[in-house]
């Protein structure tokens, strides 16, 4: 009897789950398998693929074959794009931390009934269109933009500073659009922080810096790690921000991938690059899960 109702409950559960799972398998997870298959095929002349096994795409991720004498060498173009993606994502994460940590601290030390409003102020930009926020940054740093006009108007410079279409522009843009993702988890970790610990530290003649480093930081560290991952991962896969603010000159991984499906007409290479990006993201996530797990162990 109990057995029968158990099976019934299981059937009901999977029936309820089926619409969500079917949509996700069809339009999110399932197609990822096809990307893996495509990365082992031969590119078609006008895009698409020819169904012939080949590992060329995977070689081409880091190596290029000379057009004339077939010698192999490291692909400088791809490696420099990989390097730029990692470098700019790390810089974005670092700057977001430097600004985001004090901000989260500020919000967590407001009176209880005011904190939600401050957090809402952080979250509103996050829920507004990423493209629009990127565009807003572009309008600020353009040659005819606010910053340059202001500096020229004040007579500090007489030629506009070229900020748009540089690595600086991309980093600034990514910092701007992903900053709330840093503040949110640090705030969540800090909100429950017990300030009597800080009082105890001051009673023991600790300096402010020491209190910050030795008392507050260790306790909110899981939030910092979470925030760093949340900023680093979308930065690494960013497409819109480098496209708009890099202007097709400073490519990042996302743009390199897109190129293979557009002008490049090398779908298998695009597929292999996508899987590479996915692998880096997964490694970052695993590091995060491990680190979070270890934190729990040491505090539990």
């Amino acid at each position, binding site marked *: 009897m109990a057995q029968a109702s158990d099976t019934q409950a299981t059937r*009901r559960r999977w029936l309820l789950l089926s619409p969500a799972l079917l949509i996700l398998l069809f339009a999110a997870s399932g197609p990822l398998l096809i990307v893996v298959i495509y990365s082992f095929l031969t590119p078609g002349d006008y895009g698409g693929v020819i169904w012939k096994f080949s590992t060329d795409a995977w070689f081409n991720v880091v190596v290029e074959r000379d057009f004339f004498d077939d010698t192999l060498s490291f692909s400088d173009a791809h490696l420099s794009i990989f390097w730029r993606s990692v470098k700019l994502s790390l810089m974005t994460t670092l700057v977001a931390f430097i*600004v985001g940590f*004090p901000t989260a*601290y500020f919000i967590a030390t407001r009176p209880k009934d005011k904190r939600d409003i401050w957090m809402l102020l952080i979250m509103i930009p996050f829920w507004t269109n990423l493209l629009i926020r990127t*565009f807003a940054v572009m*309008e600020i740093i353009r040659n005819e933009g606010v910053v340059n006009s202001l500096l020229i108007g004040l007579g500090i410079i007489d030629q506009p500073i070229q900020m748009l279409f540089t690595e600086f522009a991309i980093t600034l843009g990514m910092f701007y659009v992903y900053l709330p993702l840093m503040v949110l988890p640090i705030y969540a970790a800090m909100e429950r922080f017990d300030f009597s610990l800080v009082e105890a530290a001051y009673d023991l003649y600790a300096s402010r810096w020491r209190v910050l480093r030795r008392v507050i930081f260790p306790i909110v560290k899981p939030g910092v790690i979470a925030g760093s991952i949340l900023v680093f991962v979308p930065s690494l896969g960013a*497409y819109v921000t480098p*496209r708009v603010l890099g202007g097709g000159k400073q490519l990042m991984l996302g743009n390199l991938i897109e190129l293979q499906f557009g002008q490049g007409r090398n779908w298998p290479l695009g597929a292999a690059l996508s899987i590479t990006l996915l692998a880096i993201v997964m490694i970052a996530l695993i590091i995060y899960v491990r680190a979070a797990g270890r934190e729990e162990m040491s505090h539990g």
Partner: protein
Amino acid sequence: MAKSRAFDVRRQTGFVPIALLCFLVLYLPIILLVVYSFNAGQSIAIWEGFSWQWYVKAWQNEKVQDATILSLIIATSASVIATSAAVMAALATTRTRGFRGYTFVFALINQPLMIPEIVTAVALLIFFAMIKVATGYTGLMYLIIAHSAFCIPFAYMPIRARLQGMDLNLEQAGADLYGTPWRVFRRVTLPQLWPGVLAGSMLAFVISLDDVVITEFVKSAGQDTLPTYMLGQMRRVISPEVNAISTALLAISVALVIAFYLLSKGGPQKNRE
């Protein structure tokens, strides 16, 4: 002012200025964008007087009209589909003992949050290209299904949170009074769940309305939504029309997010302090 008080254990040197600067940095670009969408001139730096002209121009632009209609159709459909699926999934995964396959289900539902959007976009481009060749269908359903998929986790979260805070006794009572499961759901569960459903569908709507990357890769020719139309316009010379469209989109998002905030604040799962 702080000095007149006793030693403040919460103070850290320089944190307050950085935080205030942070809010300034977050809002200044957006505010400038909004202000200059009402500028009579072309520039974002020189104010030439108030004017509605860019709104009028955008409104009369047929491409903008088409893109707006398409954006609304897709966002509405995706929001309805994602929310319905999310309600069912939330009913199946909350208030129950752990079950076999739970980790798999949870990972699958949250997958759109973890995988870089560009990877999903490429995957869908390839997969839908295969279907397009096989069936010849190039309509809107590709975009609607793709949007529904990545909206599911956003709809799921608030609904699940609401369900977890709900009292099981009322449903038990409904069942004891010989209510059929459907009747109990409609008359007891759904009315309590409603704020969560509304919040979830609003989040899904905003997420769909704002999507650029997946739409850009999945759309067939002539299927521009507002964001992909704007992305296409962002070359060297940008018409302030884009400012006007941006401001309109911002207004919609901000209104929905504030409504979402008020809805989820009023929930029973929030214990009053």
